[in-house]
């Protein structure tokens, strides 16, 4: 049922250190990869069926193959370790427990695309993760896995750990590139795509932490091994993150396509005495689902067919004590705050959305407001410069679809009908506020 691969060494003593990682077979894959032709490494990753774990699910090997090797400019690998999508909490624990899994993946991926400098862009608000990454890179340098003439192959690579400074939009890959160039993190117009003109205008691959961390296991165990797990079009194992009203929240590494019913069961069920009300399959930017969707396979196709997206597999679980209007308002405030301001539908639109949702949550709205909300969302979705704005409308439209009555109850009631204490973890523990 569970298939620990990425998380397999997390219970080893000092799993973040090189010695521990190597005892678990770490850096064997690097030796294997360096004996292969770079193009064969790309093929292996292609054949494995690995798809990007940062949300969009783009095939990783294919992305690597887009790097024009006849382009004389330097090539770069950039790891997206900005993990800030609300609900998403997989890359941070991975880097904390086993930074070398990522570092080994970085070296292999860089070799495959023939990059001589790689960057790990990690959000700044995670000090201890930054420490462990810095140390892992230093250890790998010391061991000769990073630097010049790596393991006598003539291949040179430098890896730079770069801490961001607090901006959700920097997780968007082109905004991340601008940020890494020392600018405001605002998305770029595409084309050109980063594979052609990315960092410093050079061919660049940008991948999520989990995507890159999956590479050593693929090289070591083979593409067939990886694709023996998962579903037809969504291969391999992956980290599902359960949070919220479940008995044992946390990281559950399973084959693609497991269902939420199975995962909640593994996590000891929904909080005792309560029942599932709504959930996000992959962070707040993926449309909300309900108990009706407990049995859909959590892979790209399954969640897509249910009208949402697999996203980052951030399963935020909310029980019946949670007010959906309050939840959606809070997410919308987040998007308003994080809008980079570059384009009007998002900058102005998110502002309007918050105004109306506030009114509704306080019981001062009307039926017309619901129409206006939907209208606004329709005008924002697909009309903004980047996917942040689409994400902003997802919780709104999906919550109105599933919980219209609850919106109505707010203004029929003249306010929120929920007790905000009832949803807290200390409500049952008997602590008072």
């Amino acid at each position, binding site marked *: 049922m*569970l*298939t*620990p691969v990425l998380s397999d060494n*997390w219970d*080893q003593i000092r799993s973040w250190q090189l010695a521990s990682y190597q005892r678990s077979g770490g850096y*064997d894959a690097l030796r*294997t990869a360096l004996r292969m032709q770079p193009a064969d490494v790309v093929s292996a990753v292609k054949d494995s069926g690995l798809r990007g774990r940062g949300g969009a*699910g783009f095939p990783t090997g294919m*992305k690597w193959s887009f790097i024009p090797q006849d382009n004389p400019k*330097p090539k770069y690998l950039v790891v997206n370790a900005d993990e*800030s*999508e*609300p*609900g*998403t*909490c997989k890359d941070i624990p991975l880097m904390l*427990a086993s930074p070398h899994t990522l570092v080994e993946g970085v070296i292999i991926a860089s070799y495959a695309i023939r990059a001589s*400098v790689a960057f790990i862009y990690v*959000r700044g*608000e995670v*000090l*201890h993760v930054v*420490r462990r990454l*810095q*140390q892992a890179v230093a250890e790998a340098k010391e061991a000769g896995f990073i630097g010049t003439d790596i393991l006598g192959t003539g291949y040179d690579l430098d890896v730079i750990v*770069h*801490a*961001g*400074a*607090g901006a959700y939009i920097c997780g968007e890959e082109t905004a991340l590139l601008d940020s890494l*160039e*020392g600018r405001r993190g605002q998305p770029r117009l595409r084309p050109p795509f*980063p594979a052609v003109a990315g960092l410093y205008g050079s061919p660049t691959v940008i991948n999520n932490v989990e995507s890159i961390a999956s590479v050593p*296991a693929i090289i070591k*165990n083979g593409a067939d*091994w990886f694709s*023996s797990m998962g579903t*037809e079009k969504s291969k391999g194992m992956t980290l*599902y993150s359960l*949070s919220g009203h479940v008995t044992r*929240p946390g*990281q*559950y590494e*399973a*084959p693609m*396509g497991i*269902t939420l019913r199975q995962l909640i069961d593994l996590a000891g069920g929904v909080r005792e005495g309560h029942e599932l009300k709504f959930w996000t399959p992959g962070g*707040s930017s993926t449309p909300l689902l309900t108990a009706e969707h407990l049995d859909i396979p*959590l892979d790209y196709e*399954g969640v*897509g067919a249910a009208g949402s997206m697999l996203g980052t597999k951030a399963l935020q679980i909310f029980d019946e004590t949670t007010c959906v209007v*309050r*939840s959606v308002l*809070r997410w919308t405030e*987040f998007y308003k705050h*994080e809008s980079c301001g570059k384009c009007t539908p998002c900058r102005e639109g998110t502002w309007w959305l918050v105004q109306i949702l506030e009114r509704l949550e306080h019981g001062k709205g009307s039926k017309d407001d619901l129409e206006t909300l939907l209208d606004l969302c329709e005008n924002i979705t697909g009309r903004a410069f980047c996917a942040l704005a689409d994400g902003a409308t997802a919780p709104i439209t999906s919550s109105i679809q599933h919980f219209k009555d609850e919106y109505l109850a707010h203004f029929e009631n003249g306010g929120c009908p929920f007790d905000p*204490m009832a*949803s807290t*973890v*200390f409500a049952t523990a008997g602590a008072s506020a």
Partner: protein
Amino acid sequence: MAENHATATDVPVPYSTGDSKITDTTIAEMRELAARYPVGRSALLPMLHLVQSVEGRVTPEGIETCAEILGLTGAEVSAVATFYTMYKRRPVGDYHVGVCTNTLCAVMGGDVIFDRLKQHLDVGNDETTEDGKITLEHLECNAACDYAPVMMVNWEFFDDMTPESATQLVDDLRDGNEVKSPRGATICTWKEAERVLAGFPDGRADEGPTGGKATLAGLRLARERNWTAPSPNGGGSPAPLDGGPGPRPEDQPGRESQAVHTDDSRKED
């Protein structure tokens, strides 16, 4: 931080108005940061973290120094500094205390905790206590939702908080008691943390555990029930896993073909 013994009065510092603590050492470290990147300007974010580690905030002198080193105008650096929430124009206390109030944490108790701390410390959002010790701020999701409600002190995790544990935490910080993050190191000052973020390690990476209870929840269960990933067939190097019978592909949920949905609106490349 032995390198900052020199003070602004005994070392000539460009652009100093007198109270800036930027020294020649700082400037040398900024140049070192710029030299780490293929293009120097990439070091701007780290350099601004370094400014905060020295000045306790982003000062006009800090901005001018970054600009000078990178060949930019002060306005260009300012435009960057104001874009990112971690850069502070007002002095930050010794301890930056954050409470996640994004939806999941808010619902799980973050809102109650944040209100309680505002009362307890008698400050509003993004304000510092009178003794200069604590700056309180509400945060967006800090990638620790499986430990909700979450707080951060100087960007170290504090998991599964309650109003009581939150007030105890800030009291301990104010009283100067040693405080450890359950998934990190002993809490240093905010300025020391900023120095690490700038790219100067402090040697504390080995403190703390591999992860907390939630991080290990799935792995523990897998161990208990003897679940492993399939073992790789054929030669090559041995599997990193002990060879228990892994799930076979046909046992896996959703193995049957799905409605195919390849139209991916967020296709990136």
